[in-house]
């Protein structure tokens, strides 16, 4: 394709954005050599979860909302459990919280590895996909598959299965895995930790464009560990607020070009959730091995280049493996074996809020319950709808600096820039063919 001069019409299209979870398109408008508009269009058909949750029982949202996303079902289950338990005024004992973190580690390993090896690495190594990449780099792809399988094995043990786990309930679990079952998984997770460290080394060797962005970051944070299954909100401009104040800080907008709602901080506008935000706001909470790996990868205490997200994601796989091993060891030393796997969560009228760190960013849910536990209203804010405005803003600058490229190469690079955010379009139907209109 030839590059056309300023003032001529130019159209650049990728009808279906590949290697993302779900369906979307991108449109870029160029006027007199200036990018004037960028739109991510999410055409993934809406499924109306928030509407169909009304009238359901208060024990049902974990099973029902897990169906929003086959890649991060645990995130939906966990945020739903937190919100319902909050509405019912129930605190969860430490052993149940620990087992939730262990299950969530499995999802981080599975989802991050899927993204790093199968969706994102082919961009850096120059292949259309991982299967094509396997011909020249069999060791790389086999390591990725092995690592992903370890994550799935952890989800399968604790959750019953890797997609839509069955063992999660409001109040805890149907049953805890036994010490013997957990112990049997330990060698595999030790191997996964080695594979995760090799992943950090691989990703840190990729070439990254200079593309530092001054995004506002939002993440959960806890007073003791790296945020996964719990925490309260912090922002890079220094604000801190509780999960129950999310609605006071964040507004959702509906724009014409997308079936995803855009989320904005009421005082600061667009913001970013996900690995870069979590890492930058919680560098001091990294467990020791992950901290060493991040240092060796040259990451520093903050990361503001979205293209380096693949390195941060790899560091977070180390976090998840390291934490999973720690939890399994704590579990077999601790007094928790005979503990009940769940606490009762009696229904009551009220409103509850839940937020956890899905692999691609903070996932918030709110439920209003009637006295018998019937859901009166539900709100679900997935990570991709929070990141959508920032992805558009990244692309505006990114395309502007690359208008000299031919259409095919520009499309390929834009797709890579979008994949930096590991967008989950199925979740955010509430993502991408690429069109550049040069008027």
């Amino acid at each position, binding site marked *: 394709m030839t590059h056309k001069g300023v003032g001529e019409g130019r159209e650049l299209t990728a009808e*279906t954005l*590949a*290697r*993302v*979870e*779900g*369906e979307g398109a991108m449109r870029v408008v160029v006027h007199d050599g200036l990018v004037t508009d960028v739109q991510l269009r999410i055409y*993934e*058909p*809406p*499924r*109306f979860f*928030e*509407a*169909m949750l*009304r*009238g359901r*029982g208060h024990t049902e949202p974990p*099973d*029902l909302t897990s*169906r929003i*996303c*086959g*890649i991060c*079902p645990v995130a939906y289950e966990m945020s739903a459990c937190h919100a319902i338990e909050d509405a019912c005024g129930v605190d969860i004992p430490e052993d149940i919280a620990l087992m939730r973190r262990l299950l969530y580690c499995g999802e981080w390993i599975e989802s991050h590895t*899927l993204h790093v090896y*199968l969706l994102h690495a082919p961009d850096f190594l120059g292949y*259309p*996909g*991982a*299967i*094509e990449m*396997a011909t020249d780099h*069999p060791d790389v*792809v*086999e390591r990725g*598959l092995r690592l*992903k*399988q370890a994550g*799935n094995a952890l989800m399968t043990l604790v959750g*019953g*299965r*890797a*997609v*839509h786990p*069955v063992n999660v*309930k409001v109040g805890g679990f*149907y*049953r805890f895995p036994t010490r013997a079952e957990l112990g049997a998984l330990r060698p595999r997770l030790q191997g996964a930790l080695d594979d995760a460290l090799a992943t950090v080394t691989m990703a840190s060797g990729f070439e990254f464009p200079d593309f530092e962005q001054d995004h506002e970051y939002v993440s959960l944070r806890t007073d003791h560990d790296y945020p996964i299954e719990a925490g309260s909100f912090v922002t890079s401009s220094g604000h801190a607020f509780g999960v129950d104040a999310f609605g006071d800080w964040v507004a*959702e907008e*509906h*724009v*014409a070009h997308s*079936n995803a*709602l855009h989320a904005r901080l009421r005082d600061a506008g667009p913001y970013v959730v996900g690995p870069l935000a979590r890492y930058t706001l919680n560098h001091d909470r990294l467990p020791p091995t992950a901290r060493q790996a991040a240092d060796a990868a040259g990451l520093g205490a903050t990361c503001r280049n979205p293209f380096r997200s693949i390195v941060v994601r790899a560091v977070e796989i180390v976090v998840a493996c390291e934490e999973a091993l720690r939890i399994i060891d704590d579990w077999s030393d601790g007094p928790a074996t005979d503990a009940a796997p769940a606490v009762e969560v009696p229904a009551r009228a009220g409103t509850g809020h839940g937020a956890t760190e899905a692999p691609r960013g903070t996932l918030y849910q709110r439920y209003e319950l009637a006295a*018998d536990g019937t859901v009166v209203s539900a709100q679900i804010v997935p990570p991709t709808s929070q990141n959508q405005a920032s992805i558009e803003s990244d692309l505006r600058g990114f395309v502007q600096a690359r208008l000299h490229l031919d259409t095919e190469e520009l499309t*390929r690079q834009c*797709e890579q820039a979008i994949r930096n955010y590991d967008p989950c379009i*199925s979740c955010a139907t*509430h993502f991408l063919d690429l069109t550049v209109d040069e008027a």
Partner: protein
Amino acid sequence: MTTAEARRPTLAVWKFASCDGCQLTLLNCEDELLELAGQVDIAYFPEATRAVVEGPYDLSLVEGSVTTAGDAARIQQVRASSRRLVTIGACATAGGIQALRNFADVSEFRAVVYARPEYVETLATSTPISAHVPVDFELRGCPIDRAQLLEVIAAFVQRRRPRVTAESVCVECKRRGNVCVTVARGTPCLGPVTHAGCGALCPSYDRGCYGCFGPADTTNTGSLSGRLVELGMPERDVHRVFRTFNAAAPAFAEESERHPSAAGGSP
């Protein structure tokens, strides 16, 4: 072997309204994925690769249900370019959880979720692929089972029918040696009326089956509902247990209609 037989069959994976979990199940075949890629030519699978081989395709796996006018037209094109078409999962086979709209007013649903409902295009119903085009095989589950998916692909490559049983979860549970959660503990369980395929997962986790594989081929849902009520389940909750991921599958839809929901509106 002739040249024509030696050609690897082409595989395409299509997505309609869904959560991506069933096509992820293909990528979750970590031990088999690279061998599979040697046996079949993965010709169209946007979640995994940018490379696109032109159709027609020997085998199309279809995930998701039809919920937009555009998708109703697209499934016709997919069928026309596919020698064999297999639906994967509850959405493609029964309409999925999004078929809960079939029992409600979709414009009201749209107004609840979206500030500007006029921006959102949708059909009033979520329908399975078989409501639109002939389907060669339907694989059940929300999500599908990995081993069953591999069996279905192997069967189509070998040009035989898949060996996938149509019995109930109860049979799998007995085979697994589980103690019956209903008989022993009074836990409500949809195992007697639910299609096998999961390996009786929930009862193995001390939980009653919640029907994610949809109705078995022959079911007596009325008898099961009677037992659920005996166990103390309110009519409202009997209604709810049949109204999940396979709500629009005829056997479950009809049974849910027999039990009033709390709202008192639609039964």
